[in-house]
């Protein structure tokens, strides 16, 4: 490795003084690819190849146990007619919207609360406490919250009833009105730590002299927030919006573990529906076409976000 580098550094200069690079020899051309090859091989084997397999599957009718039958575009036609899928898509969009809003607002609020002068131990404690749920597996989170939301002895049911939330006698998760909001809040509790840490890092990277200058100009805390913090934080907000969107649009675990998409489909998400279709109903071809739909939706939404980025993200 060092010989090649030395040769490039020590190469003779052309007449104009610009460095002239020697074309790498055959063996040297291969070197970067050899370094990349383990990761590339894994990526091709476990992501790219199955992805093309899924595309091929989406044109078939296959029940896992029998043989596959080519059915052309039938699965894609069915996407347009499947009321349960549309319901799952609607739930997913509601979940995604609230997930993005709450992650940005609550995550930023928590980061602002911690990003100030305080006793070091308190700061460490708050950082750890806010981030800790993010480290807990979804299975454990679901169990904890199933207890909290239990209709008979759940703490959330008890206090929800005390503050006058109507209709809680039968609990949260079997109630069509409360089941999805409950899952949105459980997801927020579980993942807000990530948004909090990213926002905190973003806040700490804002140069202090900008605040000093704005103070000199007479800006109060609110104006400083609107005219310094938010613009400087806009790339971080953009990152959180994109990541939250991708995560929320593919939400699966709480629906699968806590509600199975019920009651009456009130909490079904599109990925949970995909799973049920493929591995419960054994309609693997149709499930693959739902996977393609999600792929296209996530890709399209992400591209739109990137196009709109120029209008509100400060790139200075």
């Amino acid at each position: 490795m060092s010989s090649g580098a030395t040769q490039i550094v020590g190469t003779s200069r052309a007449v104009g003084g610009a460095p002239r690079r020697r074309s790498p020899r055959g063996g040297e051309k291969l070197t970067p690819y050899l370094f990349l090859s383990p990761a590339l091989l894994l990526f091709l084997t476990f992501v790219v190849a199955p992805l093309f397999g899924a595309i091929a599957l989406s044109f078939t009718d296959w029940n896992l146990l029998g043989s596959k039958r080519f059915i052309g575009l039938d699965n894609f036609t069915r996407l347009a007619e499947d009321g349960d899928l549309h319901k799952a898509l609607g739930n997913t969009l509601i979940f995604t919207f609230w997930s993005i809003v709450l992650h940005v607002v609550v995550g930023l609020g928590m980061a602002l609360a911690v990003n100030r002068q305080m006793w070091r131990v308190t700061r460490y404690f708050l950082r750890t406490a806010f981030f800790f749920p993010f480290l807990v597996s979804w299975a454990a989170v679901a169990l904890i919250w199933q207890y909290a939301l239990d209709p008979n002895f759940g703490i959330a049911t008890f206090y929800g009833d005390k503050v006058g939330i109507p209709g809680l006698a039968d609990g949260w998760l079997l109630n069509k009105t409360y089941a999805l909001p409950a899952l949105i809040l459980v997801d927020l509790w579980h993942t807000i730590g990530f948004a909090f840490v990213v926002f905190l890092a973003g806040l700490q990277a804002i140069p202090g002299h900008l605040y000093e200058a704005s103070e000199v100009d007479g800006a109060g805390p609110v104006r400083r927030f609107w005219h310094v913090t938010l613009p400087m934080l806009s790339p971080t907000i953009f990152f959180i919006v994109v990541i939250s969107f991708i995560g929320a649009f593919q939400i699966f675990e709480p629906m699968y573990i806590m509600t199975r998409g019920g009651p009456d489909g009130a909490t079904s998400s599109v990925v949970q529906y995909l799973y049920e279709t493929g591995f419960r109903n054994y309609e693997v071809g149709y499930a693959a076409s739902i996977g393609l739909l999600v792929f296209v939706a996530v890709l399209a939404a992400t591209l739109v976000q990137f196009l709109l980025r120029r209008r509100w993200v400060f790139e200075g």
Partner: protein
Amino acid sequence: MLAAGMSRRSLLRSGAIAAAGLTSASLLAACGSDDSSGSGGDGGGGGAELSFVYMGTAEQQKSWNDLFAEFGRTNRTIKLEATGVPVDNWAAFFDKVNTQIAGGVKYDIVQIATEGRELFASANLLEPLDDFIGRDRRELDELLADVDPNLIKWNTESGSPDGRTYYLPGDFNTMCLWLNTDVVRRAGAEVPTDDWTWDDFYQLGRQVKDRTGAFLYPATAEYFIGVMPWLTTNGASTMSADWRTATCDTPEAIEAAEFARKLVQDRLSPAPGGSFDRFTLTIQGRMAAFGGGRWPILQVRSLRAVDKFELLAWPHNKAERGSPVGWAGYPIFKTSENKEDAWTFVKFLVSEEGETYFAKGGGTIVPARRSVAESPAFLDDSPRGTEKLYEALQYATPIPSPPRNNIIQREIEDIWGQILTGNTSAEDGMKKMQDEISANL
């Protein structure tokens, strides 16, 4: 550390792009890991090792392992590789096994409950057993003479779509009520008899609630445990006897759903959907009864509460008696290269020796052989009335399980849950159930 020339902002942007690409791709990949022609896998087969996959939660493993050890002692030339799938319901078991089979894993024998019999038999995966049965007629005649004729009849009707035999009648479960007699006596009531009615049941619940504060019974939306007992004791079911027509919107079915809802509404049952453990709650005396087959025996024994319980036939309304029944089968796969050894193991599972050993070791299924079900191996260290689980074969209804049962069962449980919580009325719910089942038959 950031790469040269890469700002924090561009890193965030790149991160978002990479995440979008990778997560979407991996989602698609989840559907695409397909190799139907795959061979091998970790299931064995194709050698001297006999592979068997069965449903066994962690607490059931010991009795299975003892049974396999016993088989090994008497069949030293056959090496058995048994895989227990630790799930607690058949739908999850089939999800797992079907996915493994689709992925190329080969098993010689699989444990299949009623819920999967049609699916497997119609998928052309199983080896017909008729030749083996013809050859070992005498041995099997002895088995059939010891098994309740109803079980033999149901086994033939539901597991032989093309007239050939794929399953021997295996062990089963019916539903009875496990009654904590301490709670009943504390409430000042008499332990009911087996001909008790829904009204008797309700009145007992009122008395227990008023005098002890305990619940009567945990209403649940589970198909076998919570739905079918109420339907069958009112002369109803989810489907016709041939499983070809939905029958959920009959007045009897609606009445059954209304009664189950009433138990919740009047707080004789805890609100469904909770995380409470029905066995512990009943053993602690905070509930009078729960429904079950043989499987609660492990918890009841481990908490040393056998003497507290008595099993009673399910209370009835319009039918004289009622219970669902589901039974296991142990078919051999067509792809098995050890069919002779597999047949030896299947015969062992239904032999008097095998069933006795399993029952003695704490098996959570009722033996198919009457002689074993009525023997001390099964009845010792069990609550009074345990023999009623076998007697229920006289009046039980096979749990309706058409090929698309996975979808149907989910719909039934979701809708019954909504009826129990009052999200929908019994009439509307059962009509919806009728439509959903009809659409999937």
